[in-house]
């Protein structure tokens, strides 16, 4: 399955030919489907809803056994009678249709990825230079963009902390301005300070990581008490994690120092090339 796999669209139909739902039943049905990851349209005459596109469409309604026949349709279209079905059973009905139509499956990936605020971004390429995981790239006009959002490490907001303009958001982050809240002058000063801190640590966070890792290795070889050495290494990682709010599991899953250096070099080269190509 790929990102371009269309999602199943569910319509809760209560118009002509179907019995309306009590509002409590409507709420229970909507909640059950949303919690399974589906998009649900509740249609009514008071205002428009989005028109159909090529996505598969499932129309649920209390048709009392008189399910409408599917007329010729450009999109996979199905009707299902939900008379007497409990909300929990709706999920099964929709899941069956999703599977049969080959529509996208939801809920297996936490959507965690950076979102660039181009009102603030100055195209400085610090994020491209910083990210080890190839999340960022440039378009044909050498402007920064998020290209591989699925490469991003869940719950890690580190790149947003190196952005001098607070232009990188993670909408599911706990606090502002990274979560999309308005950026204040004091936020900007904090962001600048963070960059300065990384400069104080050697100008390159990955170089710092590499050195820490080498020091830890050296300690491992000298220490007889491996538990003590491990504790020291963990202490270093916890410090680093706290400074950038990087989840420990992300730090623990970093590749070898040599691989970090290689990726950091690659990212820096990409950023340099993009900066040089700017008018």
């Amino acid at each position: 399955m790929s990102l371009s796999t269309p999602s199943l669209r569910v319509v809760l139909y209560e118009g002509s030919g179907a019995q309306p739902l009590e509002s409590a039943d409507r709420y229970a049905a909507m909640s059950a489907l949303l919690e399974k990851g589906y998009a649900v349209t509740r249609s009514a005459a008071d205002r428009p809803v989005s028109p159909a596109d090529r996505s598969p469409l499932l129309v649920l309604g209390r048709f009392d056994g008189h399910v409408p026949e599917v007329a010729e349709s450009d999109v996979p279209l199905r009707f299902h009678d939900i008379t007497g079905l409990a909300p929990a059973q709706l999920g099964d009905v929709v899941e069956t249709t999703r599977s049969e139509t080959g529509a996208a499956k939801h809920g297996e990936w936490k959507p965690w990825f950076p979102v660039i605020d181009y009102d603030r971004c100055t195209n400085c390429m610090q994020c491209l230079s910083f990210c080890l995981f190839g999340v960022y790239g440039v378009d044909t006009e050498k402007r920064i963009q998020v290209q591989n959002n699925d490469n991003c490490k869940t719950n890690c907001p580190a790149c947003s902390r190196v952005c001098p303009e607070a232009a990188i958001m993670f909408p599911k982050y706990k606090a502002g301005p990274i979560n999309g809240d308005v950026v204040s002058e004091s936020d900007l000063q904090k962001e600048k300070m963070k960059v300065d801190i990384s400069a104080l640590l050697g100008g390159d966070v990955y170089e710092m990581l590499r050195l820490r890792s080498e020091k830890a290795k050296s300690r491992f070889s000298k220490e007889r008490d491996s538990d003590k050495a491990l504790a020291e290494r963990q202490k270093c990682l916890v410090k680093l994690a706290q400074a950038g709010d990087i989840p420990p599991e992300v730090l623990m899953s970093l590749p070898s120092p040599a691989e970090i250096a290689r990726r950091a070099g690659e990212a820096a080269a990409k950023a340099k090339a993009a900066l040089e190509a700017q008018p």
Partner: protein
Amino acid sequence: MTDPQPRILYCHCQYAQVVPKEVKDGVLRKLCDSGVAFEAVADLCEMSARRDPALQRLAAEGTVKIAACFPRAVKWLFHQAGAPLPITAAEVLNMRVQSADEVAAAILSPELSPNLPVGKVTAKDAPLAEESAIRNPQSAIS
């Protein structure tokens, strides 16, 4: 002929706990009680990552009111999905900071108060993700 009422979009923010449950459930309940037409999505972030065509449908036609999170985040989530919202035709209610009553009252009101941030560039000017760069989110599962 009168203009149609703004369309309504509700985001359930399913894959994170950053929107208080009592707020998102309260807004959904009031929408269901009202009997109006609306579109509910499990998670706008996920749809943006997928570049779900539904976002283009939502951004393309008429006015829209969105119950989700911070307007700045919503503006650029749509943009990153290749579906920039019209600055003057979209109002975002923020369920991270507003109460369920405030959000429901605003979203059911016929008046539209556009509140997307207007910055130094327009959404139209900013670069969009390239189709070729779209990758499989499942590869991130480990």
